[in-house]
Structure formats: structure tokens, C-alpha cells
């Protein structure tokens, strides 16, 4: 079943950042979007979660057109968002940061702290610590955990490797695969780290100057040079 479907999405009238983007994600897939800095990857993520409205085209989630919906409505409909640079709330503890992912405004909501702490035990040890004082890798874990507590069906991940030590980067790729396999969470991520793309993605879109220019299946992903092509300066 198709979970997410973007068709003809254009963002920015005068100087389009995204032009006529078609993209779809099937249930339980891990889909990557590869591209250099400034090709519109973050804009794509913000358009899917609803922080940006497309000027043309539509965003369809679970068969329903959500184009006009605000980001908090989409989040409560089951889309989890992990922003670039993590955006841990300053002045809030690890526990309070996690609480913000609970969909407090949804009335009743299911939370799954147990699974989250199984994945990231370090967070449970540091619940009372100021979230901003964690290391880069731990902040990334907190951002992932924060998006996971409300049990999303689709997880949006914006450059998970940015500002994280190489050893932790591999760890995070593994964690994301585990989340996908054990919790059944569908994942759409954007990335320019070749290793992360190859170890995480089932398939992958390539972006250049705001357009989707290629779609790479498992075979193409196995060939390092094909992706490297889209990341070359």
C-alpha cells in the first residue's frame, strides 16, 4: 500500500526550491533521497510534514489529501519528524523533550517508551539532564526517540549523519534499520553521506536543483559509483 504520495509538488513561485516533484513511499519501506547541499532536500521534508505549503501539486498520506493541513495535524495523523540539526528544545530536560513527542494535543495517545528506551538506553539514564548538553550523537538519538514515542507510521529523517561522529553514524543507520524491521515503521530520509544511504535505503531518489532526476533500486544502490555521481561536486 502506498503510504505517501507527492505529485507535481512545486515550492516557491519566484525561485522554485522544489520543481514538479513526484515521489511515493510504500508501507514498510526505507526510502532515501540523495543530493548535494542546497538541492532542496530539507524543503522536501518540510513540505511533507507541512511546515511549508506547496504552491502547486499535492501531498497525499494514506490516500487522503493533506496538502492544506497544518504540521501538527499531520504529526497527529502519524507522521514523525526528525529535523536537520535535531532541534532539541533548549532549557528542556531529556524527559520533557520526549514528552513533546507524545502528541499532547491529540486527546488520548499511545506512547511506547519501553521500545524507545530499549533502543536508546542512554536516554533513560539521562532523563533529568538538559537535552542541549547531550553530545551530537545522543541528541540525534533523542530526536529520533522524541519522534518515535507517539508510534508514527512514517518517520521523516533529515540528514541524520550531520554533526555526528563517524562511529555513531553507523550506529544510527543500524538503529533505523532495527526500527524499520522491529516496529514496522516506514522511513523517508534525506542524506548526502554515501555510507548512510547505502546501508539504510531500500531504494533511493536522486535530486538535483529541486528536481527528482533519477530513481535508484537495490541494484543501483549496490554500485557505489552511481550514487557518488549525484554527490560529486
Amino acid at each position, binding site marked *: 500500500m502506498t503510504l505517501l504520495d507527492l505529485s507535481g509538488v512545486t515550492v516557491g513561485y519566484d525561485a522554485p526550491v522544489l520543481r514538479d516533484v513526484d515521489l511515493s513511499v510504500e508501507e514498510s519501506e526505507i526510502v532515501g533521497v540523495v543530493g548535494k547541499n542546497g538541492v532542496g532536500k530539507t524543503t522536501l521534508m518540510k513540505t511533507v510534514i507541512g511546515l511549508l505549503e506547496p504552491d502547486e501539486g499535492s501531498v497525499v498520506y494514506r490516500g487522503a489529501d493533506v496538502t492544506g493541513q497544518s504540521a501538527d495535524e499531520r504529526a497527529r495523523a502519524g507522521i514523525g519528524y526528525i*529535523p536537520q540539526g535535531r532541534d532539541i528544545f533548549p532549557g528542556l530536560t531529556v524527559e520533557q523533550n520526549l514528552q513533546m513527542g507524545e502528541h499532547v494535543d491529540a486527546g488520548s495517545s499511545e506512547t511506547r517508551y519501553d521500545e524507545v528506551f530499549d533502543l536508546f538506553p542512554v536516554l533513560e539514564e539521562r532523563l533529568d539532564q538538559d537535552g542541549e548538553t547531550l553530545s551530537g550523537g545522543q541528541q540525534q538519538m533523542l530526536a529520533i526517540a522524541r519522534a518515535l514515542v507517539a508510534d508514527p507510521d512514517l518517520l521523516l529523517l533529515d540528514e541524520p549523519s550531520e554533526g555526528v561522529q563517524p562511529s555513531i553514524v553507523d550506529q544510527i543507520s543500524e538503529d533505523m534499520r532495527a526500527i524499520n524491521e522491529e516496529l514496522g515503521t516506514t522511513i523517508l530520509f534525506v542524506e548526502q553521506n554515501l555510507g548512510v544511504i547505502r546501508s539504510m535505503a531500500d531504494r533511493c531518489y536522486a535530486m538535483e536543483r529541486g528536481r527528482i532526476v533519477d530513481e535508484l533500486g537495490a541494484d543501483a544502490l549496490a554500485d557505489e559509483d552511481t550514487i557518488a555521481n549525484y554527490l560529486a561536486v
Partner: protein
Amino acid sequence: MVNGLNLAFQFLDSFAFVVLAAAGLAIIFGIMGVINLAHGEFILVGAYATTVSATSLGLPLPLAMAAGVLVTALFGVVVERVIISGFVPNWIGQRTVGRDLVEPLYDRLADSMVATFGLSLIMVQGARIRFGNSIDQIATPFGNVAYGEFSYSTYRLVLAGVSVALLVVVYYVFTRTDFGTRVRATMADEQTARALGVDTDRTYMLTFGIGSGLAGLTGALFAPVLSMQPTLGSQFLVEAFVAVVVGGPSVVLGTALSGGVLGAVNATVTNLTDSTTFGRIALLLTAILALRFLPDGITGFVERVRTRREEGE
């Protein structure tokens, strides 16, 4: 001894006045980035609603004050929906011309000042047209306590207690409750909060309602000790703004500290010179010095020192 007591009383009196005048303004400014120049007129709403409830409807004073708070909070929510968030004009716009008509005033300091200044003029004139140049005042309750040749209004001592209690309650709400955490997350990063499912629009509306309710509380509490004129709000505005400027970005701590500092300055100078005018002048001089030497207020200064020390380690 007697002079010391007098000084202490005056300190408590100015502390209460500064804290009560500033609390609502500080919350709305600190959390929403909106400078509400109609803050004094929100206090006016609270004072008038309390007075009218007590004199015309014959409610007992505590109930009349509760009515004053409630009316002002509801009024604040209406103002937020119509003017600050632009929800109402945009709702109308979407249904008539098919697009939004206005942008929200959140984090637009200058724009929010112009809009709320206009609102304050309308409110003062509106009150004058509806209620005339003054309305009958409620009698000050509780009488006086005497000490030697001096006598102090018991009610004003009660106000000092209320201002301390208010700080405690506001601190508790914003640091120890789910609502407070949500508000602080929204204040720190509105986009991320929204993307995580927080209805930030509602958070802003409630915050403005609470800030307005606190202005209403100030009006209600001072209703028995002020003359009820349409311009009564302007007496609070100077102290409120000075307190927010001196206090800095941390809402509760900033308000408490500036209440302490400004209360002490005002009480000391008033006592030394025997003139409230000089007390006010000293207050404004303190604000100018604070702006010059502590541009981020006391709490901003503390924050900078702490960051520097952490970096030095």
C-alpha cells in the same frame, strides 16, 4: 526603627506594584514576542469589570474580582484571535476571497506595538464613551494596621503577599506542568513543536489568555485603591515596561528580580526625598542604566556569565 519599618512597607508596596503590573506583560512578551502596549487597558478592563460587578451587580468583592479576571482573560482571547493571530480575519478571508488577509503578529515587535497601541486608544475612548470620565470606586477593605505614629493599609500588605504567591504559581505552571513544558517548547522552537504534533496555535491563544487574565487580576486587585478613570492603565505601563526591560528574557525570575530591584530603588528614593515623583524618576534612571549596562536585563546578564564560565572550563 520606625523609619526602617516605613521603608520596609514602602518596599513591599512597590514590589507588589511592579510585579503585579509586569507579570501579564512579561509572559506575553517573553513567550509570544508580542509587545502589548494595550497592557494598561487590559488592567483597566479588569478594574472596571470588578468595580461594576461589585457596585451594579452587588457581588461580594472576591467574586467581583474573579469576574474581573475572567472577563479580561476572555477579552484577551478575543483580541488574540482577531488581532494578534489574525485567525478571525483569515477565516473570513478564506471564505470570501479565498486567501489569508493578515500575517500573525507573533515575534513582530514593532508591528505588535503599533497594533496594540491603536487598540489601547480605542479602549480608553471606548471606556470614556460607555462609562464617562469616572465611575464609583469600591471601598478599600481591611482597614489599617497602626505602628506608633504610622499606620499602613492592611490591604496593601495583602497585595504584597498576593504578588509573591503569584510568582510562585506562575513559576510552578511554567516549569512543572505539561502545559508549561509545551509553552516553553513552543517559545524555544515553534516549528519543531508544531511538527511534533503540538497545536502551537492553541498554545499561543491560551498563553495570551493567561497573560490577559493576569492583567485582569492586577486591575481587580487595585480596583479598591485607585480612582476609576479610563486612563488608569497608564499608571501601570511605565513600571511594567521598566520591569520587563530590567528583568530580561527569563519571565518569572526576571520579573521577581526586577520587582526587588525596582521596589528597593523606588522605596529608598521616595523615603529619602519624601516625594513619589523622585521615586519614579529614580525608577526610570534605573531603566536607562540597565539598558546601557545590561542590555539583556538581569537574567540575560546571568545567562551570559554562566555561558562564559562553562566555556572557560
